[in-house]
């Protein structure tokens, strides 16, 4: 649905050049919720703003729904943008318009006649659960309600793609959850493809099918969230599982075992103890529930050197677990 190829964008200010996006390729499939993560300044917002060409890339192409946006003249680009919804961290609502007026704005831009507009606005506000606040001004709404207006507005043009730049960062955890559930629900009901930027692991876990991690303008890893998490050494895995640095125990092998769906709930540790008579002890571990299943990581200590533990480790690997010797 979204194909980004060789995208590059540099900013020049006061003689300094910042390569905000430095050669990014990304593919977001139809109907998928795709998260982009990375530290502050990694280039996430720039990447997102290049997708609807709010920012014109220096090189590369952006194809949305089969249309190469970088090749379009201004007029056609504006029309194409109406098919791409966008929501913002600080909501970006017009303070001089009511909730209904804000949702009507993109419809006015599209030239939808007044009668039809009113009806569509009512539908959209109902869709986000704000039917009763149509005449409130943004200043009279809570953060969560403002973001709902933002979402209704973004959906006005019946977009195929929704872009979101930290849409929940300004909200409390509960409100975040309700907004995320709304997005997930919309993506399923409307077949919407969502590309979102976030700092919050909760967002990735709760709604993302796929994710990319950016660092200094580049994508350092990308793929399905569960595949990334199952991969030892994944930056995303480290963020989500947070097992910390392994302790330095004498004459002990410490291994990190990553388990996906099938392994969750299996008694592989007990199995190990029984079969090899090793004193395996669990040092740390978490199991995360994702949008499409469970993934966990366990840190296990086995007495003896790695060589001495070759057989038990092989057993774990043979059981389909990914095993990484941490120390």
């Amino acid at each position: 649905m979204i194909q980004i190829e060789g995208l590059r964008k540099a900013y020049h200010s006061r003689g300094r050049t910042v390569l905000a996006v430095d050669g990014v390729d990304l593919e977001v499939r139809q109907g998928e919720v795709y998260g982009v993560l990375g530290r502050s300044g990694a280039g996430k917002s720039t990447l997102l703003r290049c997708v609807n060409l709010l920012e014109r890339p220096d090189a590369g192409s952006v194809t949305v729904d089969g249309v190469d946006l970088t090749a379009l003249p201004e007029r056609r680009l504006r029309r194409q943008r109406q098919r791409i919804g966008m929501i913002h961290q600080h909501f970006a609502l017009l303070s001089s318009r009511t909730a209904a007026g804000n949702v009507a704005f993109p419809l006015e831009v599209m030239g939808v006649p007044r009668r039809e507009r009113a009806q569509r606005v009512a539908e959209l506000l109902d869709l986000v659960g704000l039917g009763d606040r149509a005449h409130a001004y943004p200043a009279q709404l809570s953060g969560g309600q403002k973001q709902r207006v933002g979402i209704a507005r973004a959906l006005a043009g019946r977009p195929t793609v929704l872009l979101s730049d930290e849409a929940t960062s300004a909200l409390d955890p509960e409100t975040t959850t309700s907004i995320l559930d709304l997005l997930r629900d919309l993506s399923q009901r409307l077949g919407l493809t969502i590309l979102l930027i976030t700092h919050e692991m909760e967002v990735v876990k709760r709604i993302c099918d796929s994710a990319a991690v950016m660092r200094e303008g580049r994508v350092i890893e990308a793929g399905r969230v569960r595949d990334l998490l199952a991969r030892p050494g994944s930056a995303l895995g480290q963020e989500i599982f947070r097992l910390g640095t392994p302790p330095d125990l004498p004459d002990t092998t410490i291994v990190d075992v990553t388990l996906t769906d099938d392994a969750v709930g299996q008694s592989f540790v007990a199995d190990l103890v029984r079969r090899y008579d090793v004193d395996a002890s669990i040092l740390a571990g978490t199991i995360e529930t994702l949008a499409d299943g469970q993934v966990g990581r366990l840190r296990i200590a086995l007495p003896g050197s790695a060589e001495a533990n070759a057989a038990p480790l092989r057993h774990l690997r043979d059981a389909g677990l990914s095993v990484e010797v941490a120390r």
Partner: protein
Amino acid sequence: MTPMTWAEIQPLLWQASIETGYMVAVSSALTAVGGLLLGVLLVLTGRGGLLATRPVNLVLGILINIGRSLPFIILLVAIIPFTRALVGTTIGTEAAIVPLTVAAIPFFARIVETAIREVDRDVIAAARAMGASRTEIVFKVLLREARPGLVAGLTITVIALIGYSAMAGTVGGGGLGDLAIRYGYQRFENTVMVATVVLLVVFVQLIQSLGDLIVRWLSRK
């Protein structure tokens, strides 16, 4: 010389009030249009604007600064040829409107610029993301969102124009300020002096209150 009676003063005050009202109203209206135009252009051509063009922005900025740095009384004289070309005369109320407007436009343009720059960048980005054209962004986003600031700024400008208009007597423009100088100051008619001052204070108060009221109504958000 005996002091003037109230019956003699009253028609003078009435006439002067009308002249002041006329000068201020017409120059305010022209200033509103001109200042908005210039202010919007300043923002659009400025850094990161929708029509960013440095040379145009620079020239506009310099012109506005020149206009703002000239004392009104000097501007009044300096643009006499321009005034004549425009209204065919250099004396009278009509002739006073020209320098008043020329002086107030740059003043208001800067206020317009500031008010529009206050509009959240995110909101502008959001409008662009929704496919809005530049014209739509100017009228439906920038001017609309900046309304409270624009009205507050216009109020300040109108009040400044009342002040400037007092000097319009120099070119026979008439008005309350002129009356105060000719009768109150030069002929020691204290009653006239006090009456004009009271009237000016009332005018300013009324305009400020009206402005505040509109601003409050516009920012009911």
